[in-house]
């Protein structure tokens, strides 16, 4: 073999070594994209559908949880949170529209879980969410419906009626001369009720049930109660003071964004009101005052694990890991910044970042003085109210 040939083969060999080395190097040093979804097959994915009032808090906790690298039997847990109104989620569960099925659901209230369970029991003959045992629904945080009313308007109503109640709201709503007749300014126009659309937000529906509670002076409301023509006429007069009947949702964000222009007072979720107090003060010179109603509707935001075969046992247990994390003292304390009352009794309502302390001067109370809690209405009561709303208010 002459020298030229030797050199030729040496160079070819060198080329092969360089290329092979390059390929090996690029494989060894391949950097994973930090934003790419976890490719590890061992990862336990926990999909959580969360009610809107707690969604920001739960999402924040999920980011922390993921960043801290929690594992179950050596497998990393990855939590993703999808915000969804409780009523919407209930409908999607019942219509099988959730695909894939979430590992866990945090509805606004325990009774939504019961309604979904009842629907599945009819079809499958079993519960899909458990009410006892390790996987039972556990409250994560607590809030309630309270009156939110602009200070200027609250003073006028208290002067006129002594208290803020559904009956007061009713009388203000039907005053033909509007605020001028009630003792307020003429240019405030008529009284405007701030309440969520019950078709789009569970708190709107709960407020209607609470109104029925006060009307009848009891906590247990039946279909006969809500279909009584006298009650419907009374409720109709209240609802006629809603400022938007065109089908919009109307939330506390709207009350804050449009101010007393579109809503003077309303029964809304305390946590939502607390979160928006500062914004309202910045945007509208008139601050908001909180008043607690006699008939209280509580929301407990239970963490509820799906028990069907669509999720594995390991995923269910990973969901429980996240639930325990949410109930830890540190994460429960973070809930205060979202206007939520911690479910963990070890965590006080007061303290650093507590909106309850910050807005105590506006009527916010750490301990709610009245204990007449509305009982969860059954499905027929809710449907009767929604039908009445569709026909008489929404014009459907």
């Amino acid at each position, binding site marked *: 073999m002459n020298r030229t040939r030797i050199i030729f083969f040496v160079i070819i060999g060198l080329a092969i070594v360089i290329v092979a080395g390059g390929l090996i190097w690029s494989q060894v040093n391949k950097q994973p994209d930090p934003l790419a979804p976890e490719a590890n097959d061992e990862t336990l994915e926990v999909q959580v559908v969360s009610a809107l009032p707690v969604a920001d808090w739960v999402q924040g906790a999920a980011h922390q949880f993921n960043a801290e690298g929690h594992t179950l039997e050596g497998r990393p847990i990855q939590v993703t949170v999808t915000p969804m109104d409780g009523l919407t989620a209930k409908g999607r569960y019942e219509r099988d529209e959730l695909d894939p099925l979430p590992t866990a659901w945090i509805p606004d209230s325990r009774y939504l879980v019961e309604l979904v369970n009842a629907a599945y029991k009819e079809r499958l003959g079993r519960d899909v969410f458990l009410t006892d045992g390790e996987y039972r629904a556990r409250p994560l945080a607590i809030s309630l419906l309270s009156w939110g009313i602009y200070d200027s308007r609250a003073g006028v109503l208290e002067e006129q009626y002594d208290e803020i109640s559904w009956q007061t709201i009713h009388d203000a709503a039907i005053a033909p001369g509007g605020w001028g007749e009630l003792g307020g300014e003429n240019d405030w126009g008529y009284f405007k009720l701030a309440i969520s659309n019950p078709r789009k937000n569970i708190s709107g529906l709960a407020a209607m049930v609470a109104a029925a509670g006060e009307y009848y002076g009891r906590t247990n409301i039946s279909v006969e109660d809500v279909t009584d023509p006298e009650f419907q006429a009374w409720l109709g007069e209240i609802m006629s003071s809603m400022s938007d*009947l065109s089908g919009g949702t109307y939330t506390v964000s709207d009350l804050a964004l*449009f101010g007393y*222009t579109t809503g003077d007072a309303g029964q809304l979720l305390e946590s939502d009101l607390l979160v928006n107090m500062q914004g309202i003060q910045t945007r509208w010179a008139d601050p908001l005052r909180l008043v607690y109603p006699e008939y209280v509707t509580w929301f407990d935001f239970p963490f509820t694990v799906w028990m069907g075969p669509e999720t594995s046992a390991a995923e269910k247990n990973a969901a429980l890991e996240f639930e325990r994390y949410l109930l830890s003292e540190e994460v429960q304390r973070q809930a205060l910044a979202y206007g939520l009352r911690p479910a963990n009794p070890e965590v006080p309502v007061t303290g650093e970042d507590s909106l309850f302390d910050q807005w105590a001067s506006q009527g916010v109370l750490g301990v709610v003085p009245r204990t007449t809690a509305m009982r969860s209405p059954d499905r027929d009561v809710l449907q009767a109210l929604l039908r009445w709303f569709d026909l008489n208010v929404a014009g459907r």
Partner: protein
Amino acid sequence: MAQRQARMSGSSKRSTDSGVRTVLIVLLVLLFLMIGLCCGTYMLLSRLFDGGEEPILSVPEAALTVTYSPEKELVFRELVDRFNGQGQETPEGQRVTVEAVPLDPEAMVNAVLDGGATFQAMTPDSSIWLGQLDGAWYDKAGSEAVGETARYAVSPVVIAMWEGLAREMGWPNQPISWQDLLDRAQADPDFRWSHPSTSSASGLLATLAEFYAGAGKTRGLTIEDVTAQETLDYVAALEKTVRYYGEGDEPAIIERALLEGRDFLDAFVVQEQMVTHFNTHRGGGQERLIAIHPAEGALWEDHPLALLETGDLTPLQRQTFARFRDYLLSPEAQQLVLSHGYRPADLSIPLDGPASPLTAQNGVDPSEPNTSLQIPNASIIEVVRDVWWYTKRHTNVYLVVDTSGSMRDEKLAQAQEALRIFLDQIKGEQERVGLVKFASRVNTVVTLDELGRSRTALELAVDGLQAEGDTALLDAVFVAQQQLKELGDTERINAVVVMTDGRENNSWIDLRNLVQELRKDSGVPVVVFAIAYGQDADMEVLRIIAESTGGQVHEGDVETIEDLYKILSTYF
């Protein structure tokens, strides 16, 4: 000899060395080529089969098409450009982009209901449209069409009024109501005001406010209220004082107000943001506009961004929606929104801060409005829109169409389609429409008559248009305006919509005399709207004609002519 051999041997060695060097160089080149080839092949294969970070055969974008109402063109385009400029990518390396398409809100709703929507999200000027869409979709499909919704900017609908006039009417010491506006308009025949047609939120909300005022209510409007004769009389009286309607092109109205000042209109309905825009752009010495919140109550344009759950949304489009929504609510975007004169959704941004244009100097008071009118349910809104066609100021309009030889083929075909759309858009059968065609001569093809009687004749006449001859543009405008003046109908809006693709070359009347005729005070004001169709149209002549009557010129081509006629139909 030995020396010679040595020289030869040396020469041979040099020759051998030179050959080796050549081979080496060739081999080195080959080496680099092979390395390059191998690396290239590796990269290609890895991207094709290995799910590489940037697939090169196809780069699917996580593109979301969002349709927006045109009055927020300036701010929305800037928001979209800035969002796209961030170059966001999904974890899989797909570009996240938003494509913005303008469409008037009524057309958005219709496109979704007809199944012809090419967009996955919409941002109309008001949530009213979402309610309308949801209601109709519920009837059709038993579910709701509107998914996740977010607001990023709001602005109340106001009556924009020149400061001098506002002070005459009592501002700032006493509130001004719709009734005050009616009284003023009826007492002063020279008073000119305008609101858009009901196909935009400001027009719809202004119309609702009129019906409320007519019914003597600020809430609880019923169908009986809307259709009561007293209400209809009230609204009709107020509408008779409207100079002309429009498609809600608020920037165009402000542009004209900047150019013409009070000669343009005394008052007009726009969102508050436009008043701010005018006052920050007005020339030195030009009178301010004041944002008047009607005493009966205001209504808001709330510019919702809504995801549509009607089609096959991809997960990527959902992701893009979420990112775009987050961007719109980011501090940077919210400051931009405020700088354009909107009230941002972020409540931590004070409206009276140093960066806010919402100041008394700019004619607005951020602590207002004090109250609002109740927005009725979708079925009552629908009735208001229908009834408005009967109460609105009616129109005598001549369509003047160029049929000269240059209009042959596609140009004429597109114009014919545009004319059909124009006729289709005018729902009121009491509106009077006539058709004049011109080429070498002027021919009144269909005399002015109510659409209830003339619609078929007009449609047939449009179908029968043929292109041939010269361009007697000036004569045609003269004939049309003369017929309107001879009619002597001061109750209605009298208008000419003239379209030409060329230059005047065959008229008896010259431009100077035509303008004199148009300006002549005959007691019947005729407004001319002109369409310059294609690049050869004489824009300058059309501008002079239109502006001498307080009208407008629009430029169009075969692509846009249908939209132009559709827009102009909303003026009547």
